[in-house]
């Protein structure tokens, strides 16, 4: 049985096709989230790359901030539940999932059996999220994907203390004006995101195994800083940005099974 998950976030759109709730057949990811044509493109690609058609999908679920505006899915589920399901499929012993996406950060606590038992999200400020990294990368004329490699060259991470993205931006500009090496500024930015996320995680209570999902999980600089802040190993999967879509497809499968 094939099920489909669609995750329309604030900055990206993702799809996943799952076979029998276990095997990932195909995934797709496009830049651009709610309000763009990316959800349609991601959907088209997941079918074209897999060879399956929409008619072969037994059930589908949509998640993410754009879930309310997407018509045509059988179910609409919060991204918290979907990330929890997707994360647990990839890491069967997962207990704490830290999801840092484009505009928010979430820490989800799972029971031993994998049920979501609690969660905490950041306040609506963008500091500590993917948007924060984008703004900072822009100031430094870097690509978000380059931040990890640049941070790795740091010898003495700079201190970025502002909790507001706008203030942090001017702090970064001041550091640049003060001739602080760019790798140190980038490492400081990663540490700043990690510190805010760690505070959130500590409030929920970190139970191992811990993993990260969302676009920011791809940044090894943030992962490393978060591991140090939480003093735990953080599991990583190259599929981390797709946990929401995979979880949505798994939710659809579970619904069919429960019928």
């Amino acid at each position, binding site marked *: 049985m094939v099920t489909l998950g669609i995750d329309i976030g604030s900055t990206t759109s993702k799809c996943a096709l799952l076979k029998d709730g276990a095997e990932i057949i195909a995934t797709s990811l496009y830049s651009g989230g709610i309000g763009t044509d990316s959800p349609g493109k991601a959907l088209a690609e997941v079918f074209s790359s897999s060879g399956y058609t929409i008619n072969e999908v037994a059930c589908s679920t949509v998640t993410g*901030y754009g879930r309310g505006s997407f018509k045509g899915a059988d179910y609409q589920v*919060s991204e*918290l539940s979907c990330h929890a399901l997707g994360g647990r499929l990839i890491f069967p012993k997962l207990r704490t999932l830290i999801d840092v996406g484009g505009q928010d950060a979430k820490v989800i606590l799972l029971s031993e059996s994998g049920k979501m*038992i*609690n*969660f905490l*999200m950041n306040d*609506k400020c963008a500091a500590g999220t993917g948007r924060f990294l984008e703004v900072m990368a822009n100031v430094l004329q870097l690509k978000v994907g380059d931040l990890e490699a640049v941070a790795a060259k740091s010898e003495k991470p700079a201190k970025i203390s502002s909790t507001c993205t706008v203030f942090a931006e001017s702090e970064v500009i001041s550091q640049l004006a003060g001739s602080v090496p760019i790798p140190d500024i980038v490492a400081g930015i990663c540490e700043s995101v990690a510190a805010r996320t760690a505070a959130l995680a500590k409030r929920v209570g970190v139970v191992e195994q811990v993993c990260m999902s969302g676009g920011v999980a791809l940044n090894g600089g943030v992962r490393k800083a978060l591991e140090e802040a939480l003093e735990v190993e953080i599991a990583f999967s190259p599929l981390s940005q797709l946990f929401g879509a995979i979880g949505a497809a798994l*939710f659809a499968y579970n619904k069919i099974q429960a019928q």
Partner: protein
Amino acid sequence: MAEEVKPARPPADPNSAKYKLEQIVRKHYREVQEAKERGEKIGWCASNFPQEIFQTLGIKVCYPENQAAAIAARGGGQRLCEIAESEGYSNDICAYARISLAYSKVKEAPEQDMPLPDFVLCCNNICNCMIKWYENLAKTLNIPMIFIDIPFNPDYTVSDAQVEYVKAQFLDAIRQLEEITGKKWSEERFREVMAISNRTSRAWLEATSYCRYKPSPLNGFDLLNHMAVAVCARGTVEAAEAFETLVEEYKKAVAEGSSTFRGEQKHRIMFEGIACWPHLRTTFTALKNRGINMVATIYADAFGFIYDDFDGLIRAYCNVPNAINLELARDRRIKIAKDTGAEGILVHVNRSCKLWSGFMNEMSRQIGETCEIPVTSFDGDQADPRNFSAAQYETRVQALAEIMEANKGGI
């Protein structure tokens, strides 16, 4: 395309509690306006100032907190907040305070007008921001401020020393009001007012206790409206009778299995914090659409003052939810959550209210752990519409509903 014609609402039954309660609020504003027009001295009053004082003296007051909530709920919050900010008040200050301070400058708001005061009655058992807010009102309007200091209580009980401290101020407030208004205190009338206030409070607490039934006969958000009467008319016979009518209606609804909550009540939650008045419809609809009814709130306790004598009255005002320590506040909420069978907690992290939101992270964590129920919070504001994100609220409420559903064995 033809315009959709909404069916006219049937006229409210004049014998219904809803009608009676609405009339009490209207009468409250009308009476204070009429008193002002007659040349009587009228006041603005903090919501937890002992109302027995001015009820006994026959002095009319109105409540800036109620007014600010009404203005915010009717869409005027941002306009008045911006007026206050243009006067130099920080947007970090409580939005009720900003709205009230702005109103004292512009002196009109079509959403909810009220006459300007000749004195202000302040009591800090609800918050300390109120002291500066009322001081500024008194200074800018050049009127006296009567203040009763009820300090935050770090202990589990109210000490005799605290009772003496507050009682002395209570008596002094009477003396000051006699001087300002020329009205005279009557012990006999005071005993009468205490009896009526107790009767009203008992009926209010009984009505709110009907949330414990499954299904609850009331939509929990109803309490947010009814609360205005518990604040502004506790010492009146009309309020007592209206709440007694409400009790009868709930009793009947329980027997019939009906409710003012439309639709199936799938989940029961505790709502913590002041309502997000500017986004009341959004916050309510996200709950209603998922069959989530608010069955528990500390609001019920906040305006239910039960006491036997003068000392008991003072103790009651020292025991209001915002004047007590975390442990006592937590234990009261745990009792409410257990009594009503709350299955989750939704916490409004209210940017306006530093006091309430400040201890809420830790308190709600402890309540959630003790009651073994999930806790979710959202950012908002009691009256400034700029501090709320509907999409984030929706996600958190949906996830809370999914956890509660899973806890019942669903997917």
